[in-house]
């Protein structure tokens, strides 16, 4: 049984402290990392990382060299931590327990295959290595390769495959034994836009409603936003932010974005007069922060617009892009 833990993003924790608004997000945890330190000789790749990976689809974000791949390799037991603890599916990663790798599927960042094999042989062999009886492995290899869209190409030698096909086969070999957790390291690397779309769709469909938890490591923010519900942001081997994407994009102080027909200086002055903070317009959209409850804020803004005869075209709770949130987290 999976351990159940409370998963709370630092931002929400901070909000809870500052605005006395408590938001709990109670979900099961597939991986728990506590003060994890991983060193390669003198170089510290992970430096006291503490985080929890909840069930579902989670993005592992960070710039190049942030420690994402090291974290995945540590979770699989490839790398022994210098200190700290990493637990995956309730098993200690440092123990090197092979049960971990039987329950987890890894899609590595680099191209990888077994030389001299066709895709069916390769995936069936991967299944056999994972513990499937050979006949089951072969049956399942056909099924998974069909799902990954390789069709009749599955009978070809893997070495003749294009980059996109190699990415698909990496996903197929990770999925063949029905893992509980799928670790995807840069799954869209080297793919053209169409291939990228297809790969993201595959990952999304596996991670939503199919009982497979997914941890996607990437520095491509739109990919993460498309596939994942939550993110863990790592930089310099340390945790910089964690939480649902929705929470991360939220702007502190309940700001709203108001779109006018055209930029209006009197409107901005009116908002300032009633104590609001207004940012310079982006095209015709103002970001406004006013004290008070949401309905009071909306009433005050509409009154200001009426007073200054500014035509309101749009009104929504302001949120940042994931890119802004990411830059904020890593800056």
């Amino acid at each position, binding site marked *: 049984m999976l351990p159940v833990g409370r998963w709370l993003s630092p931002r929400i924790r901070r909000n809870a402290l500052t605005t006395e608004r408590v938001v709990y997000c109670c979900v099961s945890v597939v991986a728990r990392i506590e003060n994890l330190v991983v060193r390669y000789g003198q170089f510290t790749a992970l430096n006291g990382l503490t985080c929890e990976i909840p069930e579902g689809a989670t993005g592992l974000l960070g710039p190049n060299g942030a420690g994402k791949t090291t974290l995945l390799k540590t979770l699989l037991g490839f790398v022994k931590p210098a200190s700290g603890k990493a637990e995956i599916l309730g098993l200690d990663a440092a123990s090197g327990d092979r049960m971990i790798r*039987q329950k*987890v599927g890894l899609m590595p960042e*680099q*191209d990888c*295959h077994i030389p001299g094999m066709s895709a069916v042989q390769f995936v069936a*062999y991967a299944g056999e290595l994972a513990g499937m009886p050979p006949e089951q492995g072969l049956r399942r290899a056909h099924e998974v390769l069909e799902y990954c869209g390789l069709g009749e190409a599955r009978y070809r030698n893997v070495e003749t495959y294009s980059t996109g096909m190699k990415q698909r086969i990496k996903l197929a070999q990770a999925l063949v034994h029905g893992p509980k957790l799928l670790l995807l390291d840069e799954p869209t690397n080297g793919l053209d836009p169409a291939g990228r779309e297809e790969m993201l769709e595959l990952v999304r469909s596996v991670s939503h409603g199919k*009982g497979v938890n997914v941890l996607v490591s990437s520095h491509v923010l739109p990919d993460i936003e498309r596939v994942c519900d939550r993110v863990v942001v790592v930089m310099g081997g340390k945790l910089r932010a964690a939480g649902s994407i929705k929470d991360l994009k939220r702007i502190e102080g309940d700001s709203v974005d108001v779109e006018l027909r055209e930029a209006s200086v009197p409107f901005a002055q009116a908002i300032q007069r009633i104590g609001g903070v207004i940012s310079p317009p982006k095209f015709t959209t103002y970001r406004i922060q006013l004290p008070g409850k949401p309905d009071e804020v909306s009433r005050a803004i509409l009154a200001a617009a009426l007073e200054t005869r500014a035509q309101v075209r749009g009104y929504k709770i302001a949120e940042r892009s994931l890119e802004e949130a990411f830059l904020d987290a890593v800056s």
Partner: protein
Amino acid sequence: MSSPIADLSYRHYDGELLPPVNRWWAIAKASIRLSIKKKGFWIWAAISSYWYLIMMATYYFIDNFFSGAAQRGVVQLGQKNPLLSTIIWKDQFLNGFSISQMLLFVIALLVGVGTISNDNRANALLVYLSKPCTKADYVIGKWFGIFLPLTAVTLAPMLFFYAYCAMSFKSYGFFSQDALLLPKLLLISMIPGAVHASLALGVSSLFNQGRLAGATYSGIYFMSLFFTKAMQVVHFKMAAGDHAASPLVDKLYYFSIDGIQIGLAKWILATRGSELFPHQSDLNGIPPTSLSVPQPSFAYIVPLALIACGIGVLVAWRRVRAVEVVGR
């Protein structure tokens, strides 16, 4: 074209998963399957048995010629064939084994030397080690993937020749000369597999390309073979002179990939070896038996073989890693 599989959506696998033990056998099986898919393997395997075929053909004609002579009254009926009577049977297996060394090396090149280097090139280690396989499973599986095909190729013609001799030359001391010949042959047939598997694995793990590993292994093989042949020439020269060959020269003769294998085979068979027809006349006054290098002692050849094999496996063990460690 529509797919023959109707449901193309992802379905979870909830079937049987065997406990994560003995994965080395799955790796060995896959390696063997890849080896026997190669045409070259079968061609060289067939060629490697040529000396046994020549011996079989030679003995067949000697036997038939003598039988014909007996029927024509040239020799007395019931008289034993003088040629076959002098043959030391275990030495014939040693001859076949020694002569097939070069061809077994070619098979080792084909099936063994690229085994880890090609995996390195294709990053296959990530696939292996992300599954419930340990480094030991990988190294042992790869080792057996070379050992078993080579052993089979060595053993098959030996057994064929043994069966032919057992059926035809029982009356010429085939069984009485050495009652334990068959188990000894089984043991000998494992030598090329073990030596080549260990050394080829070590060399293979040092490279990212099978061709480079092959070239390096060939270099090591031929350099050491050249050394052995040089020691053999020295041995001949000393034997042809007034004094016996130096024990040091005889020891150095076995200091090569071929030498280790022949030395072990001589030690197991307890023979220094002889020519195809041991009764043949002396060569310039030198008895043919003194031309062959004496069998090595257990204390020399077994540790030498173990050290060579151990180094190969140790190198492979050290080099096989799921993660390229940087910053060291």
